[in-house]
Structures are given as C-alpha cells and as structure tokens.
C-alpha cells in the first residue's frame, strides 16, 4: 500500500460524517490542509503588516515583496483598470502558492493535485470574468466572439470556434495546475520507491535524481501559482479592455 504512488492523493474523512441532504460535507484531510494554508496566509500577512517599520524585518519584507510582485503583475498584464481586483488576485495567488508549497512537505496532502479543487477555482474565475465583462460592456461583450475582418460566409463557423475556445479557458486553467502537481508528486513517489527497492547498493542514483526532482517541484509549485494568477489577469484584461 505504501509503495502505491497514487496513495498520497487519497481523500479520507477526519472526524464525524456530516451530511447535508444527500451531499457529504464531512471534514476531510483536503479541507484540513485548506484550513492550514488559509491560516498560514492570514498569520504571515498579518504579522508582516502589523509593524510598518522603515527598515523591514524578514516577515514584513516577504509581505511587501509579494504585494509589489502581484501588483506589478496586474498592472503589466491588465492595466490600471484592473486595480480594484487586486485583493482577489492576491488571495488567489497566495492560496494556490501556499497549497502547492504545503504539498511539498512530506506526509502532507496536496490540495491542488485534485482536479475538482482546481476546476472550482478556475470556473469561479471564469464566471466572475464573464460577469465583469457583461457588466462593463453590456451586450457589447459578445463582440469578443466576432473577430474583425472575417468574411460573412465564415462567421457562423468562426463564432462557434470562438465560443468553444472561450469555454475551454476554465478547463485549460484547471488541468494545467492539476496535471503539474499530480505528475510531479507521482514521479517523486515513484523514484522514492526505486530508492527503497534498489537498496543501499543501487539506490544512490534514484536518490540523487530525487533531490533534483524536489528542487524542480518547488519551482513548479511557485511557477504554477504564478501562471494561474497571470492567466486570471489576462482573462480579466480581455473582459475590461475589449479589443480583439
């Protein structure tokens, strides 16, 4: 059982079974790690913004660096109009980042390695961006599906293609994060299994590979959180500044 590389993704119940109608809303290890990462975010950023000293200590520096990082990312990709959505994108970025990073701790659970979690995040963004687009431009937002300079004969086909390409956004956003996290963690577990089964004689090669893989995984954990946030900014940019 322990050598099964997929075993680490198992969701199990912690505490009593809670049912809401026919829906099971029991507290699981997945929810536990969501709570842990949210509390960690709240704790770190509270601590970092409590004392506004001129010469920052480490926690304040971390909080300020991440603030400027996200705010620069938003102004670079979506322009100044996207400033009101800073709070949302910042929380999204930190949440995904902390979930990915907590997943790197041995024996912990990676929430983002489950497609339903990432899909809910992505579809929430998708719905939000669509609502914002319709609120800002009214029915003119539908112009997004009609690229300029297309002959009228091709229009029905192009519109269908554009709609499919628009609908594919939440899927590509969620699959990207989920596949990266799941593939990386499975690979690490498989190489860990090699180390055990090859023993003290041949286990050194996969072990050294595992060390490199751990570094890569930490990079991927950060990068995917970044990509998730930056794509949200790009979609927001499409909704706010309509030009095709």
């Amino acid at each position: 059982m322990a050598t099964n590389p997929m075993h680490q993704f198992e969701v199990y119940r912690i505490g009593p079974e809670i049912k809401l109608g026919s829906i099971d809303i029991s507290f699981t290890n997945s929810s536990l790690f969501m709570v842990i990462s949210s509390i960690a975010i709240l704790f770190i950023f509270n601590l970092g913004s409590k004392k506004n000293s001129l010469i920052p200590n480490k926690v304040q520096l971390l909080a300020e660096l991440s603030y400027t990082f996200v705010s620069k990312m938003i102004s670079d990709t979506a322009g100044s109009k996207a400033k009101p959505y800073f709070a949302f994108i910042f929380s999204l970025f930190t949440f995904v980042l902390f979930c990915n990073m907590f997943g790197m701790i041995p024996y912990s659970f990676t929430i983002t390695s489950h497609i339903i979690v990432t899909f809910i995040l992505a579809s929430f963004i998708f719905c939000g961006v669509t609502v914002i687009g319709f609120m800002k431009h009214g029915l003119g937002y539908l112009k997004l599906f009609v690229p300029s300079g297309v002959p009228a004969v091709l229009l029905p086909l192009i519109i269908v293609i554009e709609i499919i390409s628009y609908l594919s956004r939440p899927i590509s956003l969620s699959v990207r994060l989920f596949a990266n996290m799941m593939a990386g963690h499975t690979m690490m577990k498989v190489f860990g299994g090699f180390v055990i089964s090859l023993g003290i004689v041949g286990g050194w090669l996969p072990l050294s590979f595992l060390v490199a893989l751990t570094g890569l995984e930490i990079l991927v954990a950060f990068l995917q959180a970044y990509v998730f946030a930056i794509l949200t900014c790009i979609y927001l940019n499409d909704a706010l500044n309509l030009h095709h």
Partner: protein
Amino acid sequence: MSKDQFKTRLEIAKSKISEKNLYNDKEPPSSIGTAFKLSTELVSAVAVGTIIGFILDKTFDTKPWLILIFFFVGVIAGIMNVVRSAKKMQK
C-alpha cells in the same frame, strides 16, 4: 543609521534596480511552463468541443453526427488557441 543616510542608501539601491530592469525587463518565462500552457490549451478546446457535441447529440438524438462535427470544430479551436498564445508570447 540616521534617516538621511538611509534615504541615500535607498536611492542608490533604487537606481541599481532600475538599471537592472532597463536591460533585463522581460525575462523569458520558463520553457516548461510555456510547453504546458500550449499543450493544455490544445487539449482543453478539443475536450470542450466533444462535450458540447455529445450533449447536443443527446438532446437532438442525432448520434453520431454532431459529436463528429464538434470534435473537429474543437480541434480547430484548439489550434487557434495555440497559435494565438504563441503569437502573444512572441511579442
């Protein structure tokens, strides 16, 4: 350290950062991220097209024609997605 001293040090540090940014403003994103972005975009559009075709087939009872058509439309949409984001990357 007095406040003035700190201010001059801050100015020096700021100018250093802006110098760096002048030459190295846009770091290329890592290639593994780029590859993943393109591949998921291609696959997800095909998936969406197929799902739409499947649902329409069920409602209009026209198996298997709409799923076939929408599969290929999804492929086209996927390729368009990839071309579009590749163009965006080249900018």
